C-alpha cells in the first residue's frame, strides 16, 4: 500500500509537467492566443504598477489645460501625451489607473462567480434529484433575465458602487459555471475511474473535489477566461450607465459616460477609454479561444 502511494507521488508531478508542456505546444500554435497572452500580461503589469507608470495622479485637475488634444494634433502638448479631459485631468494617467479597476473587477468577479458556480454545480451533479432540480431551476430563473438588466436592477437596489457592480455581475455570470460544472460532473461521474475511487472507499467530498473536479476543469478554465472579459465589459457598461464606479473614479466605462457630451467636440476623451476596453477584452478573448483549442481534446486529433 505504502509502495503504491509513493509511486503515485512520484509519477504525478512528471505527468503534470508533461501535460503542461503539451498544453503549451497547442496553445503556442495559435498565434492570436499568444499575442492575446502578451497583451493581457502587459495589461496586468499596468494594473499592478499603475502608481509608478502614471505620470500624474488620475484625479488631479490642471486648471487652464482642459480638453487638450493628444500630442500629435495641433494644440497638443507632450506634457499630456493623450490629452486631457473636460476638467483638465491627464487622459493617460486616468487610463493607466483604469486598467487597475478593470483588472480588479475581472479577478474578483471570476473568483466569486467561479467558486460559487463550481460549488453549486458539483452539488447539483452529485446531489439527489430534487436538490439538483432545485439548483438548476434557480439558475434558469437567473438566466431568464438579460444579464445587464438584472445587474442594473441589483446595483440600483444595493447602491451604485463598483463593489456592488462586481457582486451583481458575479451573481449574473455564476449560472454559466453551475451549468458547465454540472454537465461535466454528470459526464465524468459514470466513468470507471470514479466508480473505482468509490469502491476504494473514497468519501463523497473526496470523490467530488479530488477525483472528479480536476477532470472537469478544462471547460471551466475556458469559461473563466471568457467571463473575465464579460465582467470587464459589463462593469464598463454599468459605469457608462451611471450604475457602476462613480466619478471621479477613473474607471473606463465611467470615463466614457463623462465624455459623452464631448462626442462631437473632443474625440480623444471618447476614443481612448473605449479603445482600452476593446483591446483588453479582445486580448482576453483571443487567449480564451486559444485556451479552448488547446484544452479541447476533440480538436487535438488533427
Amino acid at each position, binding site marked *: 500500500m505504502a509502495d503504491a502511494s509513493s509511486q503515485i507521488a512520484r509519477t504525478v508531478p512528471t505527468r503534470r509537467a508533461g501535460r503542461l508542456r503539451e498544453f503549451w505546444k497547442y496553445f503556442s500554435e495559435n498565434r492570436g492566443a499568444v499575442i492575446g497572452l502578451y497583451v493581457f500580461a502587459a495589461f496586468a503589469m499596468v494594473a499592478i504598477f499603475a502608481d509608478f507608470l502614471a505620470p500624474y495622479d488620475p484625479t488631479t485637475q490642471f486648471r487652464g489645460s482642459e480638453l487638450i488634444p493628444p500630442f500629435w494634433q495641433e494644440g497638443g502638448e507632450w506634457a499630456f501625451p493623450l490629452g486631457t479631459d473636460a476638467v483638465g485631468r491627464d487622459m493617460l494617467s486616468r487610463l493607466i489607473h483604469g486598467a487597475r479597476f478593470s483588472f480588479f473587477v475581472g479577478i474578483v468577479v471570476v473568483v466569486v462567480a467561479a467558486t460559487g458556480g463550481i460549488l453549486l454545480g458539483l452539488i447539483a451533479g452529485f446531489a439527489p434529484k430534487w436538490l439538483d432540480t432545485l439548483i438548476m431551476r434557480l439558475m434558469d430563473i437567473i438566466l431568464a433575465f438579460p444579464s445587464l438588466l438584472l445587474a442594473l436592477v441589483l446595483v440600483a437596489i444595493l447602491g451604485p458602487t463598483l463593489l456592488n457592480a462586481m457582486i451583481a455581475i458575479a451573481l449574473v455570470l455564476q449560472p454559466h459555471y453551475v451549468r458547465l460544472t454540472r454537465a461535466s460532473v454528470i459526464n465524468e461521474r459514470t466513468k470507471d475511474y470514479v466508480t473505482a475511487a468509490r469502491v476504494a472507499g473514497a468519501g463523497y467530498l473526496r470523490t467530488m473535489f479530488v477525483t472528479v473536479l480536476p477532470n472537469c476543469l478544462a471547460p471551466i478554465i475556458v469559461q473563466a477566461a471568457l467571463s473575465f472579459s464579460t465582467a470587464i465589459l459589463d462593469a464598463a457598461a454599468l459605469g457608462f450607465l451611471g450604475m457602476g464606479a462613480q466619478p471621479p473614479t477613473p474607471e473606463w466605462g465611467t470615463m466614457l459616460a463623462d465624455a459623452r457630451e464631448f*462626442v462631437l467636440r473632443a474625440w480623444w476623451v471618447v476614443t481612448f477609454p473605449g479603445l482600452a476596453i476593446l483591446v483588453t477584452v479582445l486580448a482576453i478573448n483571443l487567449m480564451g479561444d486559444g485556451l479552448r483549442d488547446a484544452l479541447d481534446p476533440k480538436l487535438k486529433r488533427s
Partner: protein
Amino acid sequence: MLRYVLARLLTFIPTFIGVTIVSFGFIRVLPGDPIIVMAGERGLSEERYQEYVERFGFDQPLWKQFWDYLTGVLQGDLGQSFVTNRNVWDEFFTLFPATLELSLCAIIFSVLVGLPAGVIAAVYRGKFFDRALMSTALVGYSMPIFWWALLLIIVFSGNLGWTPVSGRIGLMYFFDDVTGFMLIDSLISGQEGAFWSAVQHLILPSIVLGTIPLAVIARQTRSAMLEVLSEDYIRTARAKGLRPARVNGLHALRNALIPVITVIGLSVGTLLAGAILTETIFSWPGIGKWMVDSIFRRDYPVVQGGLLLIALMVMIVNLTVDILYGLINPKIRKR
C-alpha cells in the same frame, strides 16, 4: 415529440413562478422603506405616505401581498407607474414595438451579413479571407457597444452628417401610431420623406445592436460548417457531381443551420441587454430606455413589472427555440 414539448412546458411553470418571486422580491428585500426610497428627495406628506402604503399593499402580510401580485400578473395587472400613474402593462406595450422594430432590424442585419460570412470563411478555411473575417468577428465580439455607438456617431453623424443622432424619426413628421412600427407607420402616413427619415434613424442603432450577434453568428456558422463539411454525407454529395455551391449551400448549410438557429434564438437575452445600452445612447423610446429611466427615477412598480415582462419574453422565446430545434432536427424529431 409531444412528450418533448410537454416536458419543456413543465419546466416552464416553476421558472415562471420563480421569476415572479424574484421581481416581486426586489422591492421587499431592499434596505429601507421602499416608499421613502421611491419618493426620494421629493419627500412625502403623512397622508400621501399612508395612501401609498395601501396602494402597494405594504400593510398586508407578505404572502397576501405576493398572492395579490401573482393574481394581478395573471390578469395582466402589474400596477401603476409611480411617476406617470399609467398602467405598467399599457406602458410596456406602447413602447415594445419600438424595441421590437430595432431588434428585428438588428437581427436581420446580423444574419444577412454573419451567415454568408461564416459560410465563406468555412469554405476557404485557413485562407486569408477566413483569417481576416474571423479576426474582425472577434473584434466585434469583444466590442463595448456603447463605445462603438459613440464612434459611429462621431463618424457618421458628426464628420459625415449622414445620420441623425437620436430618436426614431425627424421632428417635422407627425402621424398617429397605427402599428407602433415606425417603418410601417411612416409609409401609411404617406408623408413625403417620412419613411426615409425613419430608415435613417434606424441604421446606426441597428448596426450597434447587431454587432455582437453578427460576430456570434459568423463564428458559430463557421464552426458548424467546418464540422459538417468533414461529414461523410458531404463526400457523398460531392461524389454525385454536384456543384460546390450546392454542396456547401444546401447539403452543408442545411445541417449547419441547426446550431446556428439555436444560437440566434437564444440571443434574445443578449439582444435585450444590448437594447438597454443602444436605446439609452440613441434616445430610442423603447423598453430598454424605459427600464433605465425607471431605475433612475426609482419607479419601482415599473422596474418590477418590466423585469417580469422582459424575463417572461426571454423565457417564451427560449422555449419556442427549444421546440423549434426539436422540429428542425430530424434526429430529435424521431423520438
